[in-house]
């Protein structure tokens, strides 16, 4: 053989073994790939999907709240915010310079703000300014192309265009609390979501809140959106049309300006509330901007209690307005007729105690209409002596006192109608007949809310029909109209007294409106708390030591409107509350009655 071969068998054998080992390893690796790719495919597929998909919520605009003439009381306004996307910044210093100039911001503060969020990924926008003014928005919009690193975003935000107006009935929004999210999982709230926390915003939160939409988008490894996969449009919330008349509402609040008190105006035929004022008020807009703990505490601890809705949460003695109930009870129980007279000498001794009439010289002999006209205490003491407290309580409850009116607002209080049973149960004492005498003129433990008194007046005005007061027109709120067990003729006799009170130089003459036949009853309640009075003195307000009531309706035939006014520390009912009510009757008449007359012509 010519070929000269070296003996390479050993090393070739060794190389062959190496090949087998390598081949074995490759097969092992393949098995491993098989496990990942085929056996665990589902798991990794899900992980890949989680990587690439991102869900973005689309917030639904909240329903609007409108008055009966569609004036918007609670609106949504676009809230603009400007963010900086650092990813797109080319020259950092230059960007800051021009942004500071564009948005009128302090350059150093802007820089500090951006630096504070350095740790965030560069694609995540940093909000540099929110709640932008409209002119700033248009400025930025106009120069959008010059600033690709700026992102202008818009989000619907609740806005109450009239601020303080109607604050107590509208309520306010606040961030949903962690507890609420936890305890009501079916609502599927997100952290930071704004929900109604008071007033109509709370009562009708479910109606007002729309259904949130969502975007499913594809993102890359830096979280940048690449494509939209699907989109569910948000469903805006339903609008809430109220029975409130914006003009009357404004008027009522104007009349309470600088005072603490409440006014409620009802349509006795339907229970629709036309005005609802509680003073002092607050600006619900402040809740939207997530204000600080200090601001919140200041509002809660304000001695004037601006957050309190006095119309349904203020508890007051009804004072002489309760004489309406007394008169109805006495007439219906057959104790008196409208012509029964009692003599008023200015004072009377009952159960070994002297009780005074507010008119010290005395009213002399008077019948029921005159007693109501003059609000004579002695006359009603006489009725109180002849009626048991339990009978009085029955009639008070019949007229709607001591129970919720069922108005569509949260947090309503029940008030208190005392009875022997009540006293036994809560004070563990027997009822003294002397206490009945106090109750007869609306004092004693008796407590009512202004709305209860308005409803009571409404029953009188309709000659015996009870309606449920409400603010939202719709969802069968109008349907409830219920006849109470009291003859029309008896109510008519009390109305005669109420008419005289306003139209015949009675205590309610301040509410007189020529040609509108206002009927009403004043009330003056003795003050319980003196501290409140002293506080008002310090504020420089002229202090009367009594709360001032007026409740009435007009016109006498086919009444259209019930007005109830309470002015805290307003002095005699006739002095303060009645003229305020008169202004409201006037405003109502000018707006509605003249119109119908013109139409009639």
């Amino acid at each position, binding site marked *: 053989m*010519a*070929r*000269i*071969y*070296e003996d*390479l068998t*050993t*090393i*070739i054998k*060794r*190389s*062959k*073994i*190496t*090949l087998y080992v*390598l*081949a074995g*390893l*490759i097969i092992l*690796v*393949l098995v*491993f*790939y*098989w496990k*990942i*790719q*085929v056996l*665990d*495919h589902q*798991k*990794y*597929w899900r*992980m*890949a*999907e989680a*990587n*690439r998909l991102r869900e973005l919520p689309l917030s639904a605009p909240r329903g609007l709240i409108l008055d009966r003439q569609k004036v918007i009381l609670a609106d949504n306004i676009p809230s603009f915010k400007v963010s900086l996307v650092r990813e797109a910044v080319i020259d950092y210093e230059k960007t800051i310079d021009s942004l500071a100039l564009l948005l009128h911001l302090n350059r150093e503060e802007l820089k500090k703000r951006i630096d504070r969020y350095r740790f965030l990924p560069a694609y995540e926008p940093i909000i540099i300014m929110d709640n932008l003014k409209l002119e700033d928005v248009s400025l930025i919009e106009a120069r959008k192309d010059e600033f690709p690193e700026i992102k202008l975003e818009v989000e619907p935000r609740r806005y109450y265009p009239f601020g303080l107006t109607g604050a107590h009935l509208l309520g306010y929004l606040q961030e949903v609390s962690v507890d609420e999210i936890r305890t009501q999982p079916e609502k599927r709230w997100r952290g930071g979501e704004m929900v109604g926390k008071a007033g109509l915003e709370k009562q009708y939160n479910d109606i007002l809140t729309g259904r949130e939409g969502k975007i499913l988008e*594809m*993102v*890359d*490894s*830096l979280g940048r959106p*690449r494509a939209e996969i699907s989109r569910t449009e948000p469903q805006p919330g339903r609008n809430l049309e109220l029975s409130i008349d914006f003009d009357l509402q404004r008027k009522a609040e104007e009349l309470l300006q600088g005072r603490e008190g409440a006014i409620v105006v009802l349509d006795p035929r339907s229970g629709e509330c036309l005005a609802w004022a509680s003073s002092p008020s607050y600006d619900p807009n402040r809740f939207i901007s997530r204000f600080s703990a200090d601001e919140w505490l200041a509002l809660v601890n304000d001695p004037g209690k601006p957050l309190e809705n006095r119309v349904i949460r203020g508890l007051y003695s009804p004072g002489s307005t309760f004489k309406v109930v007394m008169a109805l009870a006495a007439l219906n129980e057959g104790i008196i007729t409208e012509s029964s007279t009692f003599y008023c000498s200015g004072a009377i001794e009952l159960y070994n105690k002297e009780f005074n009439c507010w008119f010290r010289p005395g009213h002399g002999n008077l019948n029921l209409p005159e007693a109501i006209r003059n609000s004579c205490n002695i006359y009603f003491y006489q009725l109180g002596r002849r009626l048991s407290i339990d009978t009085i309580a029955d009639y008070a409850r019949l007229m709607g006192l001591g129970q919720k009116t069922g108005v569509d607002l949260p947090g309503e209080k029940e008030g208190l109608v005392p009875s022997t049973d009540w006293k036994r149960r809560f004070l563990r004492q027997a009822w003294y007949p002397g206490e009945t005498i106090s109750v007869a003129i609306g004092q004693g433990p008796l407590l009512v809310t202004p709305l209860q008194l308005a409803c009571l007046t409404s029953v009188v005005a309709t000659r015996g029909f009870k309606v449920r007061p409400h603010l939202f027109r719709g969802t069968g709120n109008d349907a409830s109209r219920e006849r109470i067990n009291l003859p029309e003729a008896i109510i008519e006799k009390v109305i005669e007294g109420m008419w005289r009170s306003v139209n015949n130089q009675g205590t309610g003459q301040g509410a007189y409106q020529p040609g509108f036949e206002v009927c009403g009853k004043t009330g003056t309640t003795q003050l319980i708390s003196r501290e409140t009075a002293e506080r008002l003195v310090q504020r420089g307000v002229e202090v009367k030591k009594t709360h001032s009531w007026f409740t009435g309706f007009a016109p006498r035939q086919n009444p259209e409107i019930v007005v109830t006014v309470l002015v805290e520390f307003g002095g005699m009912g006739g002095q303060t509350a009645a003229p305020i009510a008169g202004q409201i009757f006037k405003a109502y008449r000018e707006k509605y009655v003249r119109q119908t007359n013109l139409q009639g012509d």
Partner: protein
Amino acid sequence: MLDRRIFREIDSVTILLMVVVSTVGIVFVYSAIYFQASQFVWRQIIWLLVSLLALLVAIMIDYKFLISISVPLYILMNVILLGLLFFGKLVANTRSWIVLGPFQAQPSEVTKIAVILVLARLFSEYREDHLSFKGFVVSSLVVGLPATLTALQPDLGTALTYLPILVGVYILTGMRRKYLIIILAVVLVTGFVGWNYALKDYQKKRIETLLTPNQDPRGSGYQLRQSKIAIGSGGLIGKGYHKGTQSQLRFLPARHTDFIMAVIAEELGFLGLLGVFGIYFLLIYRFFSTVWVSADRAGVYLAFLVTMMIACQFLINVMMLVGLFPITGIPIPFLSYGGSSLLANFLAASLVINVRMRRFRYV
């Protein structure tokens, strides 16, 4: 000097397989980084043509001659590596690149060929049954010097690819067990010293990542996690070319270089992966068959060491993608984007082809 007959012996099968794998690589480089692909793809195509040309030129030269000039070549390459440490341009925190206009080259890739040539020269007349102590020390130093210089750049991944060459020498020479024990002892000691005094933090992190891959979601653990998600979500048949979410949305790191196999696995599935593995296996097998038909000892050494280098690099890369090996930045031969590594692998393969076509020279 050239015998015309040997041209008939040019191993076109090997060349074809290499071109196929390289083309698959270019196709997936395009998929992985299509947004800036033109630049990358054209460069890689040019590199492929250059490499092919270099291979054809290289096989003209008898490997015996190449071995004869191996020592100066080896010294030259080491001088370059040493010079890089002092004068090299810092690219991605390492001084491993020579920048020549638009092209950059990593000399440590080419140095491996010089190392193989020197080793072949060293052992071409070595007829002992087992590796002598002197042989053990010399071969270890020959490989260790450029590997150390590379590790200092610092490019731990490339330095690591020197190791299979040395292992190849140990295997062929039939190293005794006592040397194995010495090596293990040295590894343990250097490991201990290195861990505490020499390794940079990022290097330590990479090793730690292998042990606890889920601890650091954005570091190397993140890379491994994304790589496994890409491979696993590909399933049996894959998501389709250019449709891999992990690669297209850039969750996958180093998609066009070290992790390109994960792109293939995601987009072509297990079946596609099997195909690529098949081509590699054929290539490796073909290399081995050259070892067996080699005319002389030097040829065996050349072919075997090149085979070891390429096969191990392939194996380490695919193990790395699924967490069977630390993520060390080792590209996969022929498939990954990268000019000098492609050129180096073609040149290395040219030695194998060289040996095969000259197996009958004494006829």
